[in-house]
């Protein structure tokens, strides 16, 4: 049977853009990029981008005045988030998966509500599924454990709601939908061509625009790669929390375990060795990076609210970023809700919330202080192992999976 020989470039394209990457591969690469980001300045986080974007919007409209506000391209995380969206856009184009997908109205509403809940949860609890969990656990923060617990609880409750809604309010997810600019058949080759040009352009812009500032250059470059790899591997922390309760499949949880293990290793090396620091004081500051004052109740409450939002929206803070780049309009609304509510929450809700909570509910807990480095790492390894065993047992018995 004659088979058309692919050119070397064709094979290269097929390997990276022909089909989705296994999620665990994405998890490992993203964790490595996270370590690089930490080495450059500070770890990966998602919610900070929306806070910056929203603050810029409100400031430019004259609604809020925020002292010390940086423009999106002059704010490390504002830029990181933007490049994540654009990198995902390039990745979607290159794999012919870009299309503007407009869902039924009920879905767009859920996107907005989900994004708004995530804005509340991430500002109140401190941290999203990436900044507070995927980076938070490797940072050896005790509060991050309760944040993750909150995500699980919120996700479980929201999933119950979605199942109820599908049976009792089916109109919320039914109705007219539109798909625009999809790649159709052989004429769809415009997508990979545009994607290639756009990707090159992004790298050129990122490196030239910031040629006088190394930190920004790396945030731009890493941001592009984060977006691209997230889209290619469809890496999704929301899914890792949700899947055991939905289909019972273990692919997504295992992918985040891979990311957590690699991250744990790299972050511990950095903090233990005090990489890039010269004095004990600087080393301490480095060690406390991404350890937020939220142990334990504050993290739990914020985590539950965020977990509800991410499940309803269909993506967490970073999930919203890469799906936005892929053209999923439901997640555009999630991003909108997130960036509109986050600055308001930060300014008006968080101060009251924080002062209402007692001091013991919102402490900065760096686990090596009480357990030593190896004890802290061991604690996370044990938690991951127990979580893995639960996921595998649930996959086999289907005890908790609803569909």
């Amino acid at each position, binding site marked *: *049977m004659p*088979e058309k020989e*692919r050119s070397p470039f064709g*094979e290269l394209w*097929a390997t990276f*853009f*022909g*089909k*989705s990457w296994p999620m665990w591969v994405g998890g490992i690469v993203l964790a490595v990029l996270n370590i690089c980001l930490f080495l450059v300045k500070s770890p990966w986080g998602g919610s900070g981008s929306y806070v910056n974007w929203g603050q810029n919007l409100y400031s430019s409209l004259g609604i809020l005045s925020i002292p010390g506000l940086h423009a999106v391209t002059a704010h490390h995380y504002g830029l990181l988030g933007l490049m994540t969206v654009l990198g995902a856009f390039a990745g*979607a184009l290159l*794999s*012919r*998966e870009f*299309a503007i*997908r*407009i*869902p*039924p109205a009920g*879905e767009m509403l859920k996107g907005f509500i989900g994004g708004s809940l995530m804005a509340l949860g991430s500002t109140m609890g401190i941290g999203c599924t990436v900044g507070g969990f995927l980076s938070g656990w490797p940072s050896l923060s005790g509060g991050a454990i309760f944040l993750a617990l909150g995500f699980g609880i919120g996700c479980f409750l929201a999933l119950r709601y*979605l*199942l109820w809604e*599908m*049976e009792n309010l089916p109109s919320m*997810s039914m109705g007219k*939908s*539109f*798909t625009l600019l*999809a*790649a*159709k*058949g052989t004429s*769809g080759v415009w997508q990979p061509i545009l994607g290639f040009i756009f990707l090159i352009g992004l790298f050129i812009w990122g490196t030239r625009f910031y040629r006088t500032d190394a930190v920004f250059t790396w945030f731009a470059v890493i941001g592009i790669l984060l977006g691209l790899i997230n889209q290619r591997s*469809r890496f*999704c922390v929301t*899914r890792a929390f*949700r899947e055991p309760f*939905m*289909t*019972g*499949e273990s692919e997504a949880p295992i992918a985040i375990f891979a990311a957590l293990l690699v991250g744990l290793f790299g972050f511990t090396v950095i903090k233990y060795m005090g990489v890039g620091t010269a004095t004990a004081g600087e080393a301490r500051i480095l060690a406390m990076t991404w350890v937020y004052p939220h142990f334990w109740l504050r993290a739990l409450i914020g985590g539950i609210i965020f977990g509800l939002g991410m499940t309803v929206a*269909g*993506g967490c803070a970073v999930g919203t970023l890469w*799906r936005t780049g*892929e053209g*999923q309009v*439901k*997640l555009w609304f999630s991003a909108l809700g997130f960036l509109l509510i986050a600055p308001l929450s930060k300014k008006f809700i968080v101060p009251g919330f924080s002062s209402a909570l007692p001091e013991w509910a919102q402490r900065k807990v760096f686990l090596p202080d009480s357990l030593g480095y190896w004890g802290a790492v061991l604690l996370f390894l044990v938690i991951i192992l127990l979580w893995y065993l639960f996921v595998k047992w649930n996959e086999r018995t289907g005890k908790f999976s609803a*569909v």
Partner: protein
Amino acid sequence: MRDISWYPGGVLLRGPHPPSTQYLGVYIFTPGFIHRVDIRECSPNYLSTRWSYFITTEVLMNADETLDCKGLSCPMPIMKLALTMKKLESGKILELLGTDPGSKDDVPKWCGKTGNEFLGMEEEGGVNKFYIKKT
């Protein structure tokens, strides 16, 4: 149809396919219907020279029910699929229309996990059409 090869007992067709995989079908024509006898999935870079013939034939293109999930993103397509399949009679074929790229992996996996038969996938005008048979 891109490629047609004639064999005794049937015709080998290479039909519309997503960029990453090629679906080979051995079809037997009878008046009015196309019966799919076998479907094998091949990677883009080699062509299998062996294929097995299954006894069952299904009328592939005539779906009993259609589920429109266009515009819906994860997790909605799978949730709706599960709900619809629960109510479907055994032996019936469901056509699922979707636009979420993730569904290309999710739907076959869900079928494998729940024991329902995944008959194949087509892409038409930016919309993915999945064919699932309830066992």
